[in-house]
């Protein structure tokens, strides 16, 4: 087990490094930099541009340096010989946001924590909803509710989440009087955390969690149902039934346990899906999570901010996959002992 853990950790680090390089390359790819677009904007407003200040900014942020040096600077910070001076993403300093004129860490603030909360809540939602439905559908194959759930699942897969978000927001407002947009009632913004604020958060959170989780739920139901059906048609289930095992025990004891593997393994594909969904949904609902700020940063070429967000999402995903691999290894000895992967 320990060997497996260490091995996975060692794969994770180069993966993250490659991702960070890729992200930085993409963010840097457009011609020009933030300062240029800023100058263009200032000139269009008829303001004067202070060339000295520009040069100073460019030098401070290393924008005049070649691409790979900028990357190294962003990733590893400044070094004096072997002595780490300051900055660097791996030391927890994601750089400076030009647009907001603040360190990225300050801009990002609460949004990262809220993103994590929403993501975890969505994963839990997907599990809680899809598990009973999938088990029911598999055990009652071609029954009425099986068809109903399958139909709903297809609709869930096919409808863009932003539309569901809009419609749900509207009805949440009409039926429950929930204020539109955001994760909190207006009066709680900038207030210290307390029970009332938490309650307001929970009241607002169900809509985004539902919307973000819906496509994932549909996919999960389909996969778990297929897996469970495969198991249920096997000989040992027939034998067990013939020997008089009660149906519920027969279901729970073996087939369900085996078909649960993909349930955990799938988090690897579920998490990127959820995060992708959360970007669009959060823009529509103006949630204080990564989506809107990322979009804004991308539009304005605010590279450190956008890069940090993309990187953060990738890290979240990679860690999620790592945890699911660990859980899978604990569940399934075949993986633990390296006899071929279960996927």
């Amino acid at each position, binding site marked *: 087990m320990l060997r497996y853990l260490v091995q996975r950790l060692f794969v994770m680090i180069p*993966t993250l490094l*490659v*991702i960070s390089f*890729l*992200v930085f390359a*993409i*963010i840097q*790819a*457009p*011609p020009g930099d933030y300062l240029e677009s800023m100058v263009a904007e200032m000139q269009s407003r008829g303001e004067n541009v202070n060339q000295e200040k520009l040069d100073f900014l460019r030098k401070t942020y290393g924008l005049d340096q070649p691409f790979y040096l900028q990357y190294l600077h962003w990733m590893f910070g400044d070094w004096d010989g072997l002595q780490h001076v300051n900055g660097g993403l791996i030391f927890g300093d994601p750089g400076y946001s030009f647009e907001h004129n603040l360190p990225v860490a300050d801009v990002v603030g609460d949004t990262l924590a809220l993103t994590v909360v929403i993501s975890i809540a969505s994963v839990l939602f997907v599990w809680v909803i899809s598990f009973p439905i999938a088990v029911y559908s598999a055990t009652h194959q071609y029954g009425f509710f099986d068809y109903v759930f399958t139909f709903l699942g*297809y*609709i869930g*897969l*096919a*409808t*863009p989440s*932003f*539309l569901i978000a*809009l*419609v749900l*927001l*509207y009805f949440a*407002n009409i039926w429950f009087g929930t204020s*539109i*947009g955001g994760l909190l009632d207006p009066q709680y913004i900038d207030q210290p955390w307390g029970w009332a604020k938490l309650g307001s958060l929970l009241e607002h959170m169900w809509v985004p969690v539902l919307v973000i989780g819906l496509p994932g739920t549909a996919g999960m139901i389909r996969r778990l149902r297929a897996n469970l059906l495969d198991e249920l048609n096997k000989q040992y289930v027939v034998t067990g039934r013939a020997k008089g095992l009660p149906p519920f025990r027969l279901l729970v004891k073996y087939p369900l346990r085996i078909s649960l593997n993909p349930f955990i393994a799938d988090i*690897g*594909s579920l*998490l*990127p*899906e959820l*995060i*992708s*969904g959360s*970007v*669009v949904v959060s*823009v*529509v609902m103006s949630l204080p999570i990564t989506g809107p700020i*990322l*979009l804004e940063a*991308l*539009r304005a*070429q605010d590279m450190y901010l*956008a890069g940090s*967000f*993309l990187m953060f*999402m*990738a890290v979240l*995903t*990679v860690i999620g*996959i790592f945890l699911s691999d660990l859980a899978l290894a604990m569940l399934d000895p075949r993986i633990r002992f390296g006899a071929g992967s279960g996927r």
Partner: protein
Amino acid sequence: MIEMNADPQPLKHTVSEAPFDPYSVEVVSPEQEKLYLASQWRMMWLRFKKHRLAVFSAFVLAAMYISILFVEFLSPYNLHSRNVDSIFAPPQRVHLFDKGEFIGPFVYAYNYSLDMETLKRVYTPNLEKPQPIRFFCRGDTYKFWGLIEGQTHLFCPPNGGTLFLLGSDRLGRDMFSRIMYGARISLTIGLIGVTVSFVLGMLFGGLAGYYGGWVDDLVQRAIEVLRSIPHLPLWLALAAILPVNWSPLLVYFGITIILGLIDWTGLARAVRSRLLSLREEDFCVAAELMGASPARIIFRHLMPSFMSHLIASATLAIPGMILGETALSFLGLGIRAPIVSWGVLLNEAQNIQVVALYPWLMLPIVPVIIVVLAFNFMGDGLRDAADPYK
């Protein structure tokens, strides 16, 4: 000596008198023979035909793809023709009978008034004024595929009236026509994107599966890295790269290529695993022993075996791309006006007021759902048919 029975009754024997053909077991009925002799592709077709929902979906998709060839003719208005008098007009119903009298398909004209309290435009059908819809008529001029000038439409608004089957938008443009024009972009984007990812997937999956070793390792790692970055933010970042001064057509191609660039990983995985397992199959070993060249093995023996699977997975990849484009354009980083896709149309339905006041602006979502569902069903059918020997 034992004496035989006095009167030798012949034993009743049970052998049938009918002529006996020892090979009757092996004779097959014409239908069976047809099935046995059928080529692989024919068997797939037979299998696919059984999947009713898939066949139906294929028909729906075929109809949609054919209709985008004749958009200019089929839509009553031009893409950009504005009707300043009817802004945010709700959908008009098509009637057949007026006061119990049959007068063919017609619509009632709208009476327009402004609600001074809510500042909402109120349209009420004027029951006194039935306006018959014209067919094969002269309407807005268009350039068919940007080449041939024309004026003839399948149906046009009544003389002096309007025909908004699905309502109109903030500039009084007909939603139905715009959805028709949007189909041209939205439907082709999936096809081109899938072609890009198909080529990439075949290339990288084929390399990994054929050479194995470090090539395989490299491709596998690359796939893992790409898969662990959430697609949509990556698409967004890539779409933000596209220069602002590109023409809309270039942006369109840029977007399709971006969609394909990220999406090939699934196909590459499928190709690789199929190649790896097929390489070890008996027929492949046999071909090798008979002296077939690698090229012959790959193209004559391996390719047909996994091509069907690839087509099925490619079909299942298209809806993801259509949804991706819709999301990108919805967020304003995808295709830009004046080119119109369903996502661009939905961009107008971005806020809650639309849901409350002008719900018909959300209608472009209906074709999106239909197309995505149809591709999913057809892909399922193809996947089941891809292995007809099961």
